[in-house]
């Protein structure tokens, strides 16, 4: 389970997976007591892994209090943070409250590029946070969201993590939803760039052995097979949005016409086990062709419902990242354009409140 405590964030990443209209939810954040209630309910129905995310979860002054509650209930707790605002004092308080592990993001080993990508001077603060995190003995997952702008940093990032004593490095190619989809033409790397980065990862794995685990997640745009998104809808994961809406994945709000039940209005056990939203794409009864007769439907579950919706207009369609989808050309042409791109690009739309209106239909690629 991931709790998105807030959509507020000091950074302006143009690939953010928060909704484009995140500002519309700003007055609806759950209170401390409401989040505590969520934690108790989630443990009752068997949830074990807990991520505190956002936005930037450190912007919630009650993070330490919620952490202590979660730890007391027996969750394995993870803080998913930009590192901005992660002072020594807060780290010590979080450690005392029972935080087990930290996932911190960095965009580039070059401070100038890093700061330009997120629209805020943050490199030094992130590096200082990493030093403190390691001094306090937390396991760290370094998360690098990869796009055309930073895929060249794979090798340097591996070195940086090695020097910092980081145990897990995730070089995660962007998933194209919300802000990332809006900026996709600029962000999508070419196949050649991807192959070059993957080669560096393979060499580093041989050199480093068990000292560091490097995940290299290839975007689903490139190999004609859809990802087994969330291991299936409503199978193992739920995200709870800042306003208490329960989502089968953090992107699910992009699916129009779907009601996401709120923890303030319904029992979490009912939401998970029985709500129409979680039942909607569970199992494979809902599938259309070519998924229904496909021998890979138990393997990839038809891909990602959100991607099907944003690119084809129907969440029940086969994920267009699948070469068997009649919409596969949408994916193919964007990859082709990434390869052919020359000259200066389009300006990036940086994440900011109110820069994109609530009515997004005109912007769908």
């Amino acid at each position, binding site marked *: 389970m991931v709790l998105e405590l807030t959509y507020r964030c000091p950074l302006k990443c143009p690939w953010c997976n928060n909704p484009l209209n995140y500002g519309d939810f700003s007055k609806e954040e759950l209170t401390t007591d409401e989040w505590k209630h969520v934690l108790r309910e989630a443990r009752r129905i068997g949830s*074990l892994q807990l991520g505190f995310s956002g936005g930037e979860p450190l912007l919630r002054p009650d993070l330490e209090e919620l952490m202590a509650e979660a730890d007391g209930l*027996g969750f394995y707790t993870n803080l998913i943070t930009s590192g901005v605002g992660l002072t020594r004092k807060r780290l010590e308080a979080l450690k005392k409250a029972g935080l087990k592990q930290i996932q911190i993001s960095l965009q580039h080993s070059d401070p100038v590029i890093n700061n330009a990508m997120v629209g805020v001077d943050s490199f030094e603060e992130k590096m200082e946070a990493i030093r403190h995190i390691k001094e306090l003995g937390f396991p760290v997952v370094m998360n690098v969201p990869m796009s055309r702008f930073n895929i060249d940093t794979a090798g340097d990032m591996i070195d940086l993590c090695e020097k910092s004593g980081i145990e897990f490095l995730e070089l995660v190619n962007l998933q194209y939803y919300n802000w990332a989809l809006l900026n996709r033409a600029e962000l999508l790397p070419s196949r050649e760039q991807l192959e070059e980065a993957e080669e560096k990862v393979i060499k580093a794995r041989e050199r480093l052995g*068990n000292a560091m685990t490097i995940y290299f997640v290839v975007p689903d745009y490139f190999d004609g097979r859809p990802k087994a998104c969330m291991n299936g809808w409503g199978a193992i994961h739920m995200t709870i949005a800042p306003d208490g809406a329960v989502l089968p994945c953090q992107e699910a709000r992009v699916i129009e016409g779907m009601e996401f039940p709120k923890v303030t209005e319904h029992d979490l056990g009912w939401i998970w086990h029985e709500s129409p939203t979680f039942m909607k794409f569970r199992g494979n009864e809902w599938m259309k062709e070519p998924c229904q007769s496909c021998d890979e439907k138990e393997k990839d579950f038809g891909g990602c419902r959100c991607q099907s919706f944003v690119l084809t207009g129907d969440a029940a369609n086969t994920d267009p990242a699948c070469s068997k989808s009649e919409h596969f050309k949408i994916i193919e042409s964007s990859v082709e354009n990434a390869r052919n791109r020359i000259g200066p690009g389009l300006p990036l739309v940086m994440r900011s409140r109110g820069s994109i209106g609530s009515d997004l239909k005109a912007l769908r690629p």
Partner: protein
Amino acid sequence: MNVNVDNAPIKLSDRPVINPLYLFRWEEQEKAFLLLYPEGIIKLNDSAGQILNLCGGEKTLEEILIELKQIFSTEDIDSEDIDEDIYKFMEVAIAKGWVRIKA
């Protein structure tokens, strides 16, 4: 004990301890010991759970073996076999990074 200790990853005098990256605990709802770590959960079977439960860094492998034999021993199982099974499990646990030798 039927193991070659010269080139083994763990010796009888070593004190195995669970890698601090992992959180090891009993989960009442699952009725099992779990290893929780950044990217996942391992649900341990009964014997694996019992073994790791003794890997707190205070006891030597020799002491752990003696204790486990009292837990697992039944009339129809040879205690040499138990030794070997436990030892093999420790090798796996070290190779997977669940357990380290305390310095």
